[in-house]
């Protein structure tokens, strides 16, 4: 018997579109042994999902497939639709990115899971239900008998995803494909799910393909890594070798551009990859990465092909450490020294927030922000971190004036600005700018870049002369590394990173004193994220603007912030100087959050603190500590009954908990 469960041989997938034929997967060969798990990593548009969909034969009608995919020796590409039915979901199972769109909202969870057993294994209804309960138990879901009666919307996103995985497990498949199953989830939830996936892999002896853009995630679940770029496998091998000795320049750049634990802006500048993933036409030859590669030379087109590097380690290029071209990645670029601003006065607060509340809705109230107090020092970066639903964006939006607070005060300089945009004066509007999460949505798709930036200048900086304005726009575009040719472009002609640069340019064009950045990099790929973070940092050093930087990614926050504020369920959990919070965290939630961040270095794996349960219902007013229900360090009744007092550690470092230091 063959020792590979899945063999992909010279697979090509092409899509024919209005813009012509383009290649999504190009000459991919891949072997997956029994009980082996591989992780496929790459940025969006690199063909990872297309590869998975091709294995499942889920492709759209405009796809053309060439090559062979042998599953246990049978070529799936030659199977009829009928034959595929007995493979799909039965022998090969797949878990998708969004659990809420893979579950049917109008059927109970039990019904949907029973169907799988009844259809594929011809079980009776009661047998199927038994199998369902077993599968749910395998995913460590407490009370599976209660869950089967519920509808998908009645459980949290993390549980939904675990249900999807349980569904994939029902037929005891030989191969499981997971396509970014935790990308849409919070880090603490992600950590729990990754743990159970790793456990399953060991107990059930399944083969597994795990797709992700995050090396940290892949490290937790796979032994071997496959790096894809623009539809091709550029490197593959055991994770340790890939991490310690990346041979392909792309792999190396990818590992280096992620802000890892401990990397901070004062010491290192993030490495970036110029440009972005481009669609490839069918007849384009040579290395797909060549146009973004620092190490490119004339062999990139002619002598391109996969080489064996070591045992099980293959790469399409071995120039990652080539010395004929100076190594940009080796030099740790030291960031520009921070100039001291003569006007800087750290005693004075730029922004002060007092007892801020936001309650949405009239009849059914939602308590989004429940009384927080903090201040932003001039010329500093305050990072707000927390999971979805913790009120961090609401806070940012109130400060930038999208809506007024329900209670409490926002004081900017000397003026009270606890009012909405329609009541704020021009000066305040100019001084506080907001950068949104999704640049594609925050730039008007029908306006040109010139109009987008120019209108803000005209409105808030009173530059009415079109010629003068144009010069200033060109100037500001240069600051965000965009050329003059962008003036006439419309947002959809730009890549995600370029769009975000335009949004940053718009905010900066009127020299504000505070920019609220609401997850500005979370919609971007890691290589683009790195360049945007570098840019934001450089601009801050340059212009002395203060940022209120909101993110769910602790590594990003750690990299960029001077101060960190951890939020949970509309309350502050911990606040302090970056190093104090990161190295000497006191709140149990901060600890859990820190432990859940996936580690990029496979040799440095840590124990995670698993958080069970979900966020408290935001429609209820909480009397005790909002974190009490999930806390691993709960001290007793007092946690539920009484709101924890503020514990002041140093002048700038405090947290809210009943546990004393």
């Amino acid at each position: 018997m063959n020792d590979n469960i899945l063999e992909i041989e010279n697979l090509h997938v092409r899509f024919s579109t209005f813009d012509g034929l383009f290649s999504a997967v190009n000459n991919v060969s891949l072997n997956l042994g029994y009980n082996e798990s591989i992780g496929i990593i790459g940025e969006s548009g690199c063909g990872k999902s297309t590869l998975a969909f091709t294995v499942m034969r889920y492709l759209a009608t405009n796809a053309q497939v060439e090559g062979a995919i042998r599953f246990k020796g049978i070529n799936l590409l030659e199977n009829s639709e009928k034959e595929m039915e007995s493979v799909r979901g039965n022998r090969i199972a797949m878990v998708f990115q969004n659990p809420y769109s893979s579950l049917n909202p109008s059927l109970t969870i039990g019904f949907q899971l029973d169907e799988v057993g009844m259809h594929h294994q011809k079980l009776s209804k009661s047998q199927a239900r038994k199998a369902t309960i077993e599968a749910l138990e395998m995913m460590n879901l407490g009370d599976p008998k209660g869950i089967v009666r519920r509808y998908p919307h009645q459980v949290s996103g993390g549980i939904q995803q675990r249900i999807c995985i349980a569904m994939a497990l029902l037929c005891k498949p030989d191969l499981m494909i997971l396509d970014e199953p935790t990308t849409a989830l919070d880090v603490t939830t992600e950590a729990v799910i990754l743990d159970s996936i790793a456990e399953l892999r060991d107990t059930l002896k399944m083969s597994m393909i795990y797709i992700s853009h995050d090396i940290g995630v892949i490290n937790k679940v796979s032994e071997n890594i496959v790096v894809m770029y623009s539809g091709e496998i550029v490197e593959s091998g055991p994770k340790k070798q890939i991490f310690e000795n990346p041979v392909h320049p792309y792999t190396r750049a990818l590992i280096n551009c992620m802000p890892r634990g401990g990397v901070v802006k004062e010491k290192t500048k993030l490495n970036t990859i110029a440009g972005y993933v481009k669609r490839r036409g069918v007849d384009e030859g040579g290395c797909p990465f060549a146009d973004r590669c620092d190490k490119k030379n004339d062999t990139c087109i002619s002598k391109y092909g996969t080489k064996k590097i070591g045992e099980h380690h293959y790469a399409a290029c071995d120039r990652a450490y080539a010395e004929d071209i100076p190594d940009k990645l080796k030099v740790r670029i030291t960031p520009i020294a921070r100039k001291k601003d003569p006007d800087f006065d750290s005693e004075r607060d730029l922004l002060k927030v007092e007892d801020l509340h936001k309650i949405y809705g009239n009849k059914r109230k939602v308590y989004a922000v429940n009384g927080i107090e903090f201040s932003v020092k001039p010329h500093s970066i305050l990072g707000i971190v927390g999971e979805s639903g913790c009120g961090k964006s609401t806070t940012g939006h109130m400060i930038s004036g999208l809506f007024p607070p329900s209670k409490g005060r926002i004081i900017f300089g000397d003026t009270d600005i606890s009012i909405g945009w329609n009541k704020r004066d021009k000066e305040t509007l100019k001084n506080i700018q907001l950068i949104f999460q999704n640049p594609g949505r925050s730039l008007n798709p029908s306006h040109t870049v010139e109009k987008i930036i120019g209108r803000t200048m005209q409105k808030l900086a009173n530059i009415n002369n079109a010629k003068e304005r144009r010069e200033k726009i060109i100037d500001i575009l240069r600051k965000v590394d965009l050329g003059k040719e962008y003036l006439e472009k419309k947002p959809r002609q730009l890549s995600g990173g370029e769009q975000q640069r335009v949004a940053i340019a718009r905010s900066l064009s009127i020299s504000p004193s505070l920019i609220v950045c609401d997850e500005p990099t979370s919609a971007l790929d890691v290589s683009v994220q790195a360049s945007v973070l570098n840019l934001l940092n450089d601009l801050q050093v340059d212009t002395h603007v203060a940022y209120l930087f909101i993110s769910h990614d602790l590594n990003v926050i750690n990299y960029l912030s001077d101060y960190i504020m951890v939020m949970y369920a509309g309350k502050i959990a911990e606040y302090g100087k970056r190093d104090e919070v990161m190295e000497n965290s006191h709140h149990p939630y901060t600890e859990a959050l820190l432990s859940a961040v996936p580690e990029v270095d496979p040799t440095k794996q840590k124990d995670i603190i698993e958080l069970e349960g979900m966020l408290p219902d935001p429609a209820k007013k909480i009397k005790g500590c909002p974190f009490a229900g999930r806390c691993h360090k709960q001290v007793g009744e007092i946690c539920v009954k009484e709101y924890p007092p503020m514990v002041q550690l140093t002048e700038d470092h405090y947290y809210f908990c009943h546990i004393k230091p």
Partner: protein
Amino acid sequence: MKYFFYQLKKSPLAMVGIAIIVFWLIAAFAGPSMISFTHTEMDSMNQMAAPGEYGHVLGTDSLGRDILSRIVYGSRSILTVALLTSIFSTVVGILLGFSAGYFGGRLDTAFLRGMDILMAIPPLVLSMVILGILGDSSIASLTIIVSIAFVPATARVSRGVLLTEKSQEYVSAARIRGENHLYIMFVEILPNTMGPIIVEATARFAYSIMMVASLGFLGVGLQPPTPDWGMMVIENKPIIAQAPWAVLFPALAIASLVIAISIFSDFVSKVLIHER
């Protein structure tokens, strides 16, 4: 635009639709001068002539008037009314729908209930009643009345697309730089809603042709001597057994134009969805 022609090449149906529309446009502009009979001329020697007889390409009616000439001449009035109606109802619809959707609250509720009331009355009945009361059926009054009957539909579509755009972040961005409501509505939002609104406007074009023809058929449409396709059908109904062509050809004219515009409207919506 490039995509428009790319899709057009792949869709023979849309090509047929556009060809029919172009045919009627040419007929309306240049047609009357190319036909040897005028629309009111009564060839009393050749009443109810069959198509092709005595130089009457599509025959004559009971008074000996040339059917072709009357259809071609009638296309002028019907296209004028339909075009103006679709423009008016769309513009008024945008104004009403945008202000209701943008400001929301009580204004929106009042708008919705008002539109519900107007929609509860079939547009045809509504137009008939108003035309009957006014007793005037000129092109101008017909246009205004049919427009009023269509406003609920266009206003609702405009309100709907505004609501989806209103929650976009670029609108928030415009707010916090202190733009006024009119600017946000018409400079920021309007260009991004043009797709669905254009589709609705072309659909309204087809509907208003039906409407004008129906009103003509019911006798409250354009009054003689202006030839009207609907009126021609009802006028010639008594002689349908002897001269079926006098009914058939005007009816075909209505059907061909309505179907062609509907096909075009579907096609436009398909192209515009891709644009988004």
